């Protein structure tokens, strides 16, 4: 059997190669899409924990202007502690630009995280306390290199440092915005005025011993006299980091699911492409006495050989695509783990889909007599004619439930997504035949021939199904890319005049800031993170404690503005949340929720609902006084609105309060730093959109070429019958054009519904967005793909092969 199977494969080497490549690429895409979600999570987590490294607990001061002088001694002999690592972080000015100085004790600079050195020697940090390591980005930005002497300023203090090494974007340097300079506490503390000891820090990182109870250790530390007044919290697995990583990986996970299904569909359709030819060959085997078992054996051996080879190549390709894209978009320095089980799943799914789909022509041939198979005249059950109305009806029902039953919206959106794709896949072939029928009646010979082919030859239905589903996935990916980046950029204008001054004391007077040149308005705010819990949810939120918060940013008011403002200005004990919480968890005005900050919990009534698309539900607005009274935390930030050039206002503020150790930065710069990892994920989505589009187009082209191979005899017959080469080319162009046009029309229409389903599906990840749709993106993607497909006969020079051959 294997010999016959191999003969079948070798008789059509190009088709076999196209099939192997298509299976390989599909397996690679299935693996990559299964893995990207996890990789994005890994990246965000890695970036977010760049500062804390492998530590479990961090002890920090309540105000970043405070210092810890007890350093780490009380902890050195504590039970359950593996090591402690004090760190001093300051923001200094280099050429008028903020840089982040991070100092460690001698020999401990890489205790929390290792970093890779490009040039120089990091060991020099232990030789001289005025040596520092900088990132390659900082070296480029400031024109520095190993041996460069730099002058840094903080308040009125100036200190000089020497670059001993340039590091790659790794370790602490994964979070290199503002630019990070790593040195020794002893050296960096020279930037502080009036310090009596160099044994100071403002953060102590604690690594728990293996198997130690971290919660117990947290409690032990918080009860130590030396740290009683300090903030003690877990690092790394903080809810915020996890939620952040989850939010950003959610679109990639959803895209992965769609491409996963597409990959399987592509393999199945590819293996069914030469169905007619296979059935004819089956009749030849049957007439000389091959049993059904033997026939099945030959074809399974054939498809299994191709699928096995494709899957194996696909595994190699998968690792290449996966690592390549991640290194290109996220970080070249994070070692993204290759999951063996995901690789196995992708290979097995590819193999099983291929072998399973090769059974379909065999099963179909078993329904007819040898004669019927020889003539390819087995009466076909028009499966699609049954499946399409069924899928369409189920889609309508699912969408109605999704939009009308609020509690079922998120789950039903996934059902609607799957059903809509099924409806597209089954509907396009029906639409193709329905279009070809009337057009064929009125058209000229070339188009008439194309229309007859489209109606009677199953390969067009399969090409259309791949193209339609693929085009829709591509449209959605490009829209996801465009919309995610769009949301973040469209709000930038809201913040272009805003400056944050942090590191301030709660007793500071906002009017002192308003007195600075270039400042129009200033207000004190408490800006913290806390946990908000309600019925069925527990979410990490950014808490904005300020009466004037609603004047700073352009919020929409779901609850009347006057009502919200009067509650805030009267310091009522209530919180204001985003409408997203209502949509996701049914939170409404008057509900009671529990807010936890720094381990203290308090119940609050929801005073009203607000809306801000950029913040997407992850914020709470409340009065500064209420948050201070409830959690004993004072204002730590002053938000400033600049008049005129924001850069001038920043300079004036830095100058005016140079002796106060304030950290002044305009919001857009801070936003740019904060968005580095997020932008990398957006780049990943964009790259995926491009890669998936190329993949879809390549497999559609491969499927078309495989199917077209079996129509050689027919083209011969048409040429024999006197059809000109030009007319035959026109006929093939028309076949491609109809598929492209219908795929575009149906995909474009379906993309509106699917976008809505995807947005609803994000609720499963705790994300809420209002409906957004970018028609021009969908249209551009569809037209580009459709246009390229329609012109394939010209691009691949089909005409060259139009020669009458021996039958």
């Amino acid at each position, binding site marked *: 059997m294997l010999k*016959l199977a191999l003969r079948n494969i070798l008789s059509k080497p190009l088709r076999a190669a196209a099939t192997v490549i298509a299976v390989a690429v599909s397996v690679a895409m299935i693996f990559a899409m299964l893995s990207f979600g996890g990789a994005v999570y890994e990246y965000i987590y890695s970036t977010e924990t760049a500062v804390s490294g492998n530590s479990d607990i961090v002890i920090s001061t309540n105000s970043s202007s405070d210092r810890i002088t007890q350093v780490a001694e009380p902890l050195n002999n504590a039970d359950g502690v593996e090591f402690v690592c004090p760190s001093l972080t300051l923001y200094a000015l280099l050429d008028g630009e903020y840089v982040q100085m991070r100092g460690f004790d001698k020999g401990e600079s890489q205790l929390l995280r290792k970093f890779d050195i490009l040039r120089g020697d990091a060991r020099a940090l232990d030789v001289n306390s005025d040596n520092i390591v900088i990132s390659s980005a900082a070296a480029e930005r400031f024109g520095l290199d190993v041996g460069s002497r730099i002058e840094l300023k903080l308040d009125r203090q100036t200190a000089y440092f020497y670059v001993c090494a340039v590091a790659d974007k790794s370790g602490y340097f994964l979070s290199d915005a503002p630019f990070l300079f790593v040195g020794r506490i002893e050296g960096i503390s020279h930037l502080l005025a009036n310090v009596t000891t160099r044994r100071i820090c403002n953060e102590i990182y604690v690594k728990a011993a293996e198997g130690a109870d971290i919660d117990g250790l947290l409690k032990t530390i918080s009860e130590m006299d030396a740290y009683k007044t300090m903030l003690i919290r877990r690092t790394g697995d903080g809810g915020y980091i996890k939620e952040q990583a989850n939010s950003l990986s959610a679109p990639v996970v959803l895209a992965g699911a769609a491409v996963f299904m597409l990959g399987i569909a592509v393999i199945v359709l590819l293996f069914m492409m030469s169905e007619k030819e296979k059935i004819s060959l089956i009749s030849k*085997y049957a*007439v*000389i006495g091959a*049993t059904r078992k033997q026939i099945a054996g030959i074809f399974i051996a054939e498809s299994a050989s191709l699928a096995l080879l494709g899957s194996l190549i696909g595994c190699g390709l998968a690792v290449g695509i996966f690592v390549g894209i991640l290194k290109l978009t996220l970080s070249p320095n994070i070692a993204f783990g290759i999951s063996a089980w995901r690789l196995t799943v992708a290979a097995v799914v590819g193999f099983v889909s291929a072998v399973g789909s090769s059974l379909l022509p065999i099963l179909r041939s078993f329904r007819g007599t040898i*004669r019927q198979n020889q003539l390819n005249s087995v009466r076909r059950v028009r499966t699609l004619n049954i499946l399409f109305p069924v899928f369409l009806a189920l889609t309508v029902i699912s969408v109605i439930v999704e939009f009308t039953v609020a509690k079922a919206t998120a789950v039903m959106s996934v059902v609607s997504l799957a059903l809509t794709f099924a409806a597209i896949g089954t509907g396009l072939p029906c639409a193709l035949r329905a279009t070809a029928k009337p057009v064929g009646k009125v058209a000229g010979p070339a188009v008439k021939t194309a229309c007859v082919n489209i109606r009677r030859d199953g390969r067009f239905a399969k090409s259309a199904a791949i193209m339609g589903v693929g085009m829709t996935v591509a449209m959605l990916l490009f829209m996801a890319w465009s919309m995610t980046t769009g949301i973040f950029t469209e709000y930038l204008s809201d913040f272009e005049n805003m400056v944050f001054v942090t590191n301030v004391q709660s007793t500071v007077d906002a009017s002192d800031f308003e007195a600075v040149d270039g400042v129009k308005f200033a207000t004190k705010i408490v800006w913290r993170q806390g946990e908000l819990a309600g019925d069925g949810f527990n979410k990490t939120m950014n808490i904005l404690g300020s009466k004037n918060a609603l004047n700073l940013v352009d919020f929409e008011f779901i609850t009347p503005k006057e009502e919200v403002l009067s509650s805030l200005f009267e310091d009522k004990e209530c919180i204001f949340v985003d409408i997203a919480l209502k949509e996701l968890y049914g939170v409404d005005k008057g509900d009671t929720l529990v807010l936890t900050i720094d381990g203290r919990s308090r119940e609050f009534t929801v005073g009203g609902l607000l809306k801000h698309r950029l913040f997407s539900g992850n914020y709470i607005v409340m009065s500064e006084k209420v948050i201070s009274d409830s959690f004993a935390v004072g204002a730590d930030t002053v938000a400033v609105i600049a008049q005129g050039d924001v850069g001038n206002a920043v300079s004036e503020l830095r100058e005016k309060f140079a002796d106060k150790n304030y950290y002044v930065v305009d919001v857009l710069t801070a936003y740019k730093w904060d968005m580095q990892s997020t932008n990398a994920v957006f780049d990943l989505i964009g790259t995926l959109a491009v890669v998936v589009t190329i993949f879809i187009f390549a497999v559609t082209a491969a499927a078309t070429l495989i199917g077209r191979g079996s129509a050689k005899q027919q083209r011969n017959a048409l040429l024999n019958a006197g059809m000109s080469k030009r007319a035959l080319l026109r006929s093939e162009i028309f076949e491609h054009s109809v598929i492209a046009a219908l795929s575009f029309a149906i995909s474009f229409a379906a993309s509106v519904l699917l976008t809505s389903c995807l947005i609803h599906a994000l609720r499963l990840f705790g994300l809420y967005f209002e409906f957004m749709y970018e028609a021009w993106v969908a249209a551009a993607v569809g037209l580009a793909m459709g246009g390229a497909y329609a012109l394939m006969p010209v691009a691949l020079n089909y005409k060259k092969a139009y020669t009458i051959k*021996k039958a």
Partner: protein
Amino acid sequence: MPEVVLKAENIKKSFLTGEVSTEVLKGVDFTLEEGEFVAILGESGSGKSTLLYILAGIDKPTSGSVELLGQKISEISDEALAAMRRRDFSFVYQFDNLVPNLTVYENVTLPLMLDKRKESEYKDRVSEILEYLGLADRQKNFPRQLSGGEQQRAAIARALVTSPKVIFLDEPTGSLDKERGRQVMELLADINRNKGVALVMVTHSEAHAQYASRIVRME
């Protein structure tokens, strides 16, 4: 008295084209005796090929019964019928008989291979048959490298290699020129005479029908 190897009774066959049913065979009876050579002669569309396919179990009648080598085809399992094709009877089409990606030798020995016979058992016999049919020097060629006549002889070789009791032939000379057609007919007559194989041949050629021991005319 010669043994009846094939008996068909009241065979009817109709085809459905859209809503219209066309009856091609209207109650045909047919008998074939051991070693007999029957030619079924008729014009195009008379249903002669359809009858042949039904007799060979390649197509199913709308009604009626076919008894092949003492067994009703409708009662034979697919597995058993496949085994009979490998051992007891063969079929030769007008053209396109051969598997394109197998050599002449592989095509000819395919039924034996499918029957799981060892090559050592049949190698000499295959060589003898290929020699007999004038294909000894073509056995490594692929079908596309053969002339129409050679392809047809290769198909006949494949039909012969299993030592069948009956060979069904559907216009075996239909795609050949007059001289090649004559050669094939003489070969078939020789096979029938010297090897004792019963033949049922469909043809529309009066001249070729004359090689048969009995002619059945269909109108």
